[in-house]
Structures are given as C-alpha cells and as structure tokens.
C-alpha cells in the first residue's frame, strides 16, 4: 500500500492532480491511501514551494503543475 500525499491549498490544478491519481490507481488496481495536505506549514515542511506537490511514502516526487498521466503511472508501478 502506497501512502500518497497531494500538497496544495485548494487550487484547481491540485484538485485535478488528486482526481488523476485516484483514477490511475483504480485503473492499475494499485492500493493507495490518498491524503490531501492543505496546511501551508505542513506543505513547506516538505520543502515544496510550487503547488501541487506530490509525496509518496514520505518522499517528494513532484512539485509544481499537473503531473502527466505517464508520470503518475510510473509512480504507481514503482
């Protein structure tokens, strides 16, 4: 089970990122726990300034902008 956190204070790209990860995980049949981090202090603790950021099992894998579908699939396979 992967713990995925999406960092972002409610911008439209952040919501799109969450929806994308959800959808790809379902398609790939990967078990994930998706969490939305909106608290700015917590976002900054990850060292991310450009949102949305994506954290998988404690590691920042993405910052700034909507990740591509292929990138998300790559994370889920790894």
């Amino acid at each position, binding site marked *: 089970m992967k713990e995925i956190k999406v960092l*972002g*204070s409610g*911008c439209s*790209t*952040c919501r799109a990122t969450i929806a994308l990860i959800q959808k790809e995980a379902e398609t790939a049949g990967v078990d994930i726990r998706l969490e939305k981090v909106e608290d*700015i*202090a917590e*976002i*900054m*603790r*990850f*060292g*991310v*300034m*450009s*949102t949305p*950021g994506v954290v998988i099992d404690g*590691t*920042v*894998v993405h*910052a*700034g*902008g*909507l990740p*591509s579908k*292929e990138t998300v699939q790559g994370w889920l396979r790894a």
Partner: protein
Amino acid sequence: MFEWLGNNVAYKLIGLAPASHSGQALQFFVMDISKIFVLLVGVIYIMGLLRAILSPERVREYVRSKPRWLARVLAIFLGAMTPFCSCSSVPLFIGFVEAGIPLGVTFSFLIASPMINEVAAVLLVSMLGFKVGAMYVAAGMAVAFVGGMVMEWFRPERWVEDYVWKIQMGVATLQQPDTSLAGRHRFALGEVREIVGRIWKWVMAGVAVGAAFHGYVPSQWIQEHLANGDIWSVPAAVVLGVPLYSNATGVIPIAEAMLGKGVAIGTVLALMMSIAALSLPEMLILKKVIRWPGLAIYASVLAVAFMLVGWSFNWMFA
C-alpha cells in the same frame, strides 16, 4: 497568414461586411486567437526544450545569501523567467522569508513575476513590435526594482502574519531532470499543456475585449479623448485595471487594439501593468501572509508606479 485567416473567416465564410462593426471585430478575433495560440505553443515548447522555465525552489536557492542589490536584480530577472501560478504566491512568499531573503527583494519578485515573462515578451515583440515590447519589459523591471525598494522603506515586516516567521522549511530532493532529447520533449509538451491549460481563458477573454474594442469603439472618440495622453486618462487606466485580472499574455490583444486605434502608449502601458500585476484576487491570496495595512501600501505603491510609467511615456512620446 493570420490576417488572411481572419479575413476569410469573417468576410467570406460568415459573410460579414469588412466595414461593419461585427465584421471588424470578428476578423480581429479570429486573427488574434490563431496567432496567439500558435505563438504560445511554439514559444513554450522551445522554452521547455531548453529547460529555460525555472521553478521557484531554484530561484530561492539562487537569491538567498546574496548581497541585497544583487539579490534584487536576480529576483527580478528570475521572476521574469518563472511563470508561477498566482496560487503559489503564498508558499513562495513564505519560502523566501524562511530563506532569509529580505522582504523588499521578495516584493520585487512578486511584482516582476506576473507582469513580465519570457512568453509574454516574445508575444509582445511579435504582435506589437520591438519598440513597444522593449518599453513594456524595461518599464516593468524598473517598477519591480523601485517598487521593492519603496516597500522596504515602509518596513513591511510589521504586517507579515506571525505564523510565517515560525514555519520551518524542509529540503526536498527533487529528482534530477531527464536531459535526453526524449526527456526534454516530454517536459516541453508537459509545459505546453500545463501553461496553455492554465491561461487559455485569459487569452480568449483578452482577445474578445480587444476585438470588441477594435470593432466597436469609434476612432473619432479615441482621437478626441485618449490620443494625446490627457493627464486623467492614466489614473483612469490604472483604476480600470484593478477589478480586471488577466495574465501578461491576455492583455496583449487588448493593448494591440488600443494602440491600433491611437490610444497614447503610456496609457496603454499603465492599463496593461495594472491588469497583470494589480488585481483583487492576487491581493486576497496575499492576505493570508500580509495584513491589510501592508497590502494597502503594496497596492498603492504599485498604482503610483504605474501612473508614473504612464505619464512619463505619454510625455516622452507626445
């Protein structure tokens, strides 16, 4: 080519008369929409291939612990190269504060970033000519430089929310970028999708306003009221820009239509800057980190700076 497309769609396909208001407006709309989108996709793709698009995390590393004058110059240049989304301005502000970057330098960055960017600069030059493009970029940088310095003079530390000072930032180790040609291509495509997806609404709205202006506002009226740069027209342009918000690319077609009808250059520049950099939504976002008095001063400094830009350009080119 784009003019040909505009002519064909408006006059032949739809059959509007070239002299009619609707014909002129539609011709302008089709011509500008096609031209801007082609330029936009092309420029962003090339910037993406060169990896010339910077992230705020990298900017922070370049600017921190530099002497103040150098930090400010860097912040402005890098701000111009960072097409950050206004929803990132809060984390960006906090990140700069946490890195010990002086607030005045942070303000310089916040002013420069929405107003100038490399994509808008290329579009400006190709749509409005080198002279207007260069004037806009130079004036924008001057405003960012002086505006940040003036902000510093007001000691804005007083108005920064307390929690901002307490945040401890972690260090993200981002994956190394893939610099193979295929990797660059993927990155460039992603940037095109991301940036065009974010700003197309502003561009459409800007072109629509520009088209309406081009087709319906009588030249006669412009000649009488806005061509000679009456003193009042500049503050009016700045005030008009506050409730209007668009990004730096979206204001270009509006400027194009206004200049085409003979509105004075300084008035146009003041309106463009005000629309791009001084807006209510941006202020509401910054409200999360800066209290009202600080924001009011920030908005006033910008408004005064844009008016000075407008007046001096009108005066120089009168």
